[in-house]
């Protein structure tokens, strides 16, 4: 969205806009006793000053959150950006989710993009609306806008007690032209941005009233669960539902279609009056699948074999400064290592689910925990071959996602099932289906090579090896191309380490194991290789790893400041007790740099994690407490990814079926955490993901400092380091 597009859409703003059509659109409304979720009914008619600001005659101010909230705090972040410039308090607004229409611009939560992507545009939306309200008030008072002041949802005539509420001004204000370049506030005048504010969605998340996708109720809906080919791509030969149909409450057992990355396969769905009946019956369905050669190829053993074979050959060049190979061959002091990261499940506690209603008149409604209503709208239209104006998307709160619910296979299944049974259908995947079908964070190798010069690190080569998300999903990667997402993250423009000789290459390893972006995408894989190897090189050069990084980053002021902050933290900490060690790492992703320091201590044959300190430089931010919360979450997920078992496939199916086999961090394993935010006035960077990548390598580096043993492969068994 841009302000010019607001302007061209002005005619549309003039009409009264209808918010919500089914009585199920969920918002967050402030009221005297706190905050609660509200339903917005059909008669909620407001004047739309622009797509993000709606004000009704009673003065109710509704702001639109265009980025689904999966826990990252977008409900607060998006609306804070608007409210700051609109001059309304956060307790004066109610919030609704955008429904995917183009007027809201890009609506995908992903790539830690919300605040960094919308920082100016949404503030302009708020500022433009405020200017229109102020000009309207000025006109009524026959004075200039400069004699008026907007605050707390009203316009005041300076020097008098005269006031118009925004509600009194909205209808006339909407008739004015939308200013193209509204004046934005000076950051020093911010009342909301950069300040601690409690999140308005939290009360509803502690009293059970928050409505997640899985909680949606549509009158007359049936419940469904799906049985997919354990081999993901296997062909359905036949199935027997006799026993399943005998379960009380079961209505039908039918075929449906499953979209996996890059293809489609048949699946079986059980439709019932309640979810338990569907789940119980699904276990009684017997099915024959033709897995073809997937028994051999859908196999992590085979994948790693192929990956290590690829590591023995040059990859596709992505970036080269100087002739690394020649330098490496001619150098004496050099190092080569291969680092490995496993496949991982997203394993959000809310399994994927969606509720859909394909109606007789051809219109469709979808209620689902999805990361982007615009993507959901487009995919629904494509899937059914109908126009988008026949479709209403109701995005719901996501009970975790971490990337998973941006892949909307489950939504299309719910649509297909509703189409077949001619009723609203709520589809919930069982935990087992959710875990075994993925798609998964890909396993990757980093083949690292380095040259050590005179007291410094002189050259770095990173060969990234593994399956490409773009390649597998969209078949969009030629054999001579490097995956550009990955190349961007490992580029010297990103890490800014000033190696005079630098080389980056990529080797694709194709696999039928379905893969997907996972919190911080490839950064979660390749920070492990890059940052452990920087330490390895530093040790070989006889340098302190932090000092070595300072030397490499000598021309990158912001990154140096982070390392200086880390030094200051170390200096002011008590001396490390015997049997304790620390490791550090840093990685930039989504335009934010994050550094981590992990302290571990000897425990029996292994170690325990004592404390993790993270520093994040995300430029300007909305709510410091939320930056901290996200970074704390990244510490937990980063540690989980390092010390807990990964996902493996053998004989054509996933070996892990539920949380007892795919373990994630629990309370007793959570170390003490400390988060520092670098305060500056730089443009915002991402917050939801950048804290994760440095965690695993900081742990790996701590393990080396404790044991003098270098860990190359994740996950590491922390109980057995020997």
């Amino acid at each position, binding site marked *: 969205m841009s302000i010019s597009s607001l302007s061209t859409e002005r005619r549309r703003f003039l009409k009264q806009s209808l918010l919500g059509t089914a009585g199920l659109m969920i918002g967050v409304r402030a009221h005297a006793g706190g905050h609660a979720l509200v339903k917005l009914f059909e008669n909620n008619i407001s004047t739309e000053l622009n797509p993000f600001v709606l004000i009704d005659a009673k003065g109710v101010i509704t702001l639109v959150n265009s980025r689904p909230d999966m*826990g990252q705090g977008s409900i607060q972040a998006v609306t804070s950006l608007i409210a700051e410039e609109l001059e309304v308090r956060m307790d004066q607004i109610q919030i609704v989710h955008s429904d995917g229409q183009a007027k809201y611009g890009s609506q995908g939560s992903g790539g830690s993009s919300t605040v960094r992507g919308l920082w100016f545009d949404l503030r302009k939306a708020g500022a433009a609306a405020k200017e229109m309200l102020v000009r309207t008030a000025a006109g009524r008072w026959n004075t200039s806008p400069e004699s008026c002041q907007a605050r707390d949802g009203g316009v005041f005539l300076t020097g008098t007690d005269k006031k118009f509420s925004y509600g009194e001004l909205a209808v006339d204000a909407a008739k004015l032209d939308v200013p193209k370049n509204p004046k934005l506030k000076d950051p020093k005048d911010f009342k909301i941005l950069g300040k601690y504010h409690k999140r308005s969605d939290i009360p509803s998340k502690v009293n059970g*009233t928050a409505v997640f996708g899985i909680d949606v109720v549509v009158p007359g809906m049936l419940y469904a669960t799906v049985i997919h080919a354990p081999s993901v791509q296997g062909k359905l030969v036949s199935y027997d539902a006799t026993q399943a149909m005998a379960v009380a409450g079961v209505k039908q057992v039918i075929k449906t279609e499953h979209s996996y990355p890059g293809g489609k396969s048949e699946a079986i769905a059980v439709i019932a009056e309640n979810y338990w009946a569907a789940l119980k019956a699904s276990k009684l369905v017997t099915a024959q699948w033709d897995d073809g050669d997937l028994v051999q190829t859908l196999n992590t053993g085979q994948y790693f074999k192929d990956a290590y074979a690829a590591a023995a050959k040059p990859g596709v060049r992505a970036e080269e400064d100087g002739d690394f190979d020649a330098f490496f061959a001619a150098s004496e002091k050099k190092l080569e290592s291969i680092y490995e990261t496993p496949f991982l499940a997203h394993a959000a506690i809310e*399994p994927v689910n969606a509720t859909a209603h394909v109606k007789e008149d051809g219109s469709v409604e979808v209620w689902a925990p999805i990361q982007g209503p615009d993507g959901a709208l487009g995919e629904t239209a494509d899937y059914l071959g109908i126009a988008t104006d026949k479709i209403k998307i109701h995005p719901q709160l996501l009970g975790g996602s971490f990337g998973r619910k941006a892949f909307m296979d489950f939504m299309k299944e719910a649509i297909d099932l509703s189409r077949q049974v001619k009723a609203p259908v709520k589809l919930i995947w069982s935990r087992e289906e959710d875990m075994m079908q993925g798609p998964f964070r890909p396993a990757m190798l980093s083949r690292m090579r380095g040259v050590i010069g005179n007291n410094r690190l002189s050259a770095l080569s990173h060969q990234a090896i593994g399956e490409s998300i773009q390649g597998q999903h969209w078949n969009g990667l030629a054999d001579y191309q490097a995956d550009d997402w990955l190349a961007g993250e490992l580029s010297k423009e990103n890490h800014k380490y000033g190696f005079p000789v630098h080389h980056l290459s990529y080797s694709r390893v194709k696999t039928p194991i379905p893969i997907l972006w996972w919190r911080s995408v490839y950064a979660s894989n390749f920070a492990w290789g890059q940052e452990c190897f920087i330490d390895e090189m530093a040790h070989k050069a006889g340098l302190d790893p932090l000092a070595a990084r300072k030397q490499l980053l000598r021309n990158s002021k912001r990154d140096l400041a982070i390392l200086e902050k880390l030094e200051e933290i170390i200096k002011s900490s008590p001396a490390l007790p015997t049997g304790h060690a620390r490791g550090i790492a840093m990685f930039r992703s989504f335009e934010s740099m994050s550094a981590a320091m992990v302290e571990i201590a000897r425990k029996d044959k292994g170690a325990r994690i004592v404390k993790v300190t993270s520093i994040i430089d995300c430029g300007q931010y909305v709510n410091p407490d939320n930056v901290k919360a996200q970074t704390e*979450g990244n510490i937990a997920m980063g540690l989980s990814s390092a010390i807990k078992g990964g996902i493996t496939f053998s004989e054509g199916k996933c070996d892990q079926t539920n949380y007892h086999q795919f373990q994630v961090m629990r309370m007793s394993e959570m170390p*003490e955490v400390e988060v520092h935010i670098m305060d500056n006035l730089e443009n915002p960077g991402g917050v939801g993901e950048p804290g994760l990548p440095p965690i695993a390598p900081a742990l790996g580096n701590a393990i080396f400092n404790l044991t003098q043993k270098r860990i190359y492969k994740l996950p590491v068994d922390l109980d057995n380091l020997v």
Partner: protein
Amino acid sequence: MAIFNLTINDQRYKIEAEEDMPLLWAIRDLVGLKGTKYGCGIAQCGACTVHLDGQPVRSCSLPLGVIKKKQKITTIEGIGSPQLLHAVQEAWVEEQVPQCGYCQSGQIMSAVALLAQHPEPSDDQIDTYMNGNLCRCGTYDRIRKAIHRASGSAKPKTMGTH
């Protein structure tokens, strides 16, 4: 099918269901209280935690058939009200614990039971008691702080169904 008379949050509900239906699905789909969540179905994640006579149980693995007539069930909706939050819920707000929030009903139900048993729990007691509740967002540190905060003001006698 059998008829069950359940006492949930001091209200009586008469429902018709199979004896093997786990309490979770009766609460969610038959009674219509959605605050209790499904996560794993095998008592591994704790998202479905409710109280049975004040004791925390994983409702996903508790068939209706084993619940005795006079047993009292308490869900997240029953420990406070939107107007008056329970001390543990208040502590959760003060510490801004939830991220996605999905696991937090279960976390809070476990924490309320923990504090009823140990009004001033040590970190070790928190670890032991809360280890069955997964949080994929990683809010453990704040949960710990919120439990300590609540222990200062929580009055065990008013907790849960007692």
